[in-house]
């Protein structure tokens, strides 16, 4: 066994494997609720990965925002729509469409991988620098260096909320 295989690496491999498997599950399941649940598990595993890197703040934000809020709304909508049996969702086979889908999917994968994989090739250790993503440092960065992007993002969200209310209330 190579020397860099220690407890942390094994834990990372397990969590990463689970994250990958659930990511495949999201698209592979025919049942919409199961797909959504796979996505929930995927986000949760990502949070656990952040925890193993001692980036607790990031992990907990992941859980609060994605697992706890957004995915609950996803499930809520899926249940309200009540999609019925998976058979109803199936389209008739269209080979041109499928081939195009595979092509574009492969191209997207290639583009992302070319940017993401390279820095990881020689990486053998799973760790982040000390206090990486600690709440104090994060707060300071958000309110000093990145205060304008931060405020712009909040304005964007407010515009989104106002817009959705405007659209939803138009008919009332």
């Amino acid at each position, binding site marked *: 066994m190579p020397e860099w295989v220690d407890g942390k690496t094994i834990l990372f491999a397990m969590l990463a494997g689970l994250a990958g498997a659930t990511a495949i599950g999201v698209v592979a399941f025919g049942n919409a609720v199961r797909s959504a*649940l796979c996505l929930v598990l995927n986000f949760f595993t990502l949070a656990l990965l952040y925890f193993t890197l001692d980036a607790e703040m990031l992990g907990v934000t992941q859980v609060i925002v994605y*697992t*706890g809020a957004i995915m*609950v709304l996803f*499930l*809520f909508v899926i249940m309200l729509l009540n999609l019925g049996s998976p058979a109803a969702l199936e389209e008739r086979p269209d080979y041109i469409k499928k081939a195009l889908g595979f092509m574009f999917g492969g191209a997207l994968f290639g583009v992302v991988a070319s940017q993401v994989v390279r820095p990881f090739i020689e990486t053998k250790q799973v760790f982040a620098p000390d206090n990486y993503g*600690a709440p104090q440092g994060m707060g300071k960065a958000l309110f000093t260096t990145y205060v304008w992007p931060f405020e712009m993002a909040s304005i964007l969200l407010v515009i989104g909320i106002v817009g959705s209310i405007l659209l939803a209330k138009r008919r009332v």
Partner: protein
Amino acid sequence: MRHMDRLKYFEPWLIAHPAGAALIRVLFFVVPILLIVPMLIWWERRLLSWMQDRIGPNRVATITFKSGKKLRMFGLLQAIMDGIKLAFKEDITPTAVDRLIYFLAPGLALFPAFAIGATLPWGPQEGICRLLTPVANVEIGVLFVMAISSLGVYGIVLAGYASNNKYSLMGGLRSSAQLISYELAMGMALASVVLATGSLKMTEMLEFQAEPLWGVQKFFGIDNPIQNWLVFTPFGFIAAVIFAICVVAETNRTPFDLPEAENELIAGYHTEYSSMKFAVFFMGEYAAMFVFSGVFATIFLGGYNIAPIRALEPFSGLPYIAPMVFLGKCAFGITVFIWMRATLPRLRYDQLMSLGWRSLLPLAVANFIGVGIWVIGTNQGGQVDPWAGLGAWFIAFAIFFGLYMAIKQTGKERLGTALDKRTIELVSGNPANAIAFAKPDKVEVAVEA
């Protein structure tokens, strides 16, 4: 310290390795909760019966001797007997359920109840308690509570969905809407507390609460004798009230038990569950009550400190007393839960949403701004004047009173927007007249569109 010497025997093989120490810490947290849940059920049933002028379960665990003497134990074993009964009941799984999710849901409901308490210290960070508590003293203690409590919705929603029952689904949908709404106010309430203490860490929050009240060193000439428990501070008090209401909503207890409203939805999300699967839901609810009481005690009631008197601080550090005090505060929280259940009727759905979005959330935001002003003011001035604290209390009460009036008005506003008002004359007079009150025989009723 003597306790440390005794601990040495364990050190080589268990405490020394961080994983072993972590395991012990987890056991010291989870096992007491598991043991205490039957006691909680007994306490709830007895207390409710007392509040409702009934007798309640008092028979189990009564021993009759040959001489005719009876040893009564107030029905203490009732809950354990109920547990045994549930375990031996037939476990019925309806045919049309989504099996995998149906089996997963009770476990998902139980998980957050136990995990929330992982950052709660039940003893001071010195001596033996430092090794035993909390399970993980992470930097983001308060956020961890928020994160895990937001996962509580999954067990209920999935149980409602998987049961393939309209009533169950309604319960699940109600629960998800309710939990999302109240999480916001809860987050804002906790944010104002975090702003005041300047830390997300639970142990640092307790350190903040051990300081003199309002940060005032000399209180009109004498040394400030009172600890700074957050519930005694004006902003902390408002945050505590909001947090308490949100906790009741998060644990789906009366008056927020819409997900399982039995006169509307049979039993809501757990209608189709029987035997031990139902017991797991039941246990999850009580464990969540207990752990949330612990969170409330840690953040607002000074955690393991005996009383808000600074002279008693040395006693709070004793490893025998601290857990007992913490447990006592949890018991107090649970008693309030039960008290509320005996007192308040269930809210209507629109009342629930109105309370969460139009009352609690604005109040929490106003409180947050108030805390910001308080923190800036005290940081600039250095030494805090006692009058500043009293003035802040006055403002806090004014905000609170305004909110109370706003809540009172919400019902009347409904009456005001009604299309028509009709007067109904009661045939045999208002029944309230028979007691003592002189109520009019004519009742005004709003007629809606």
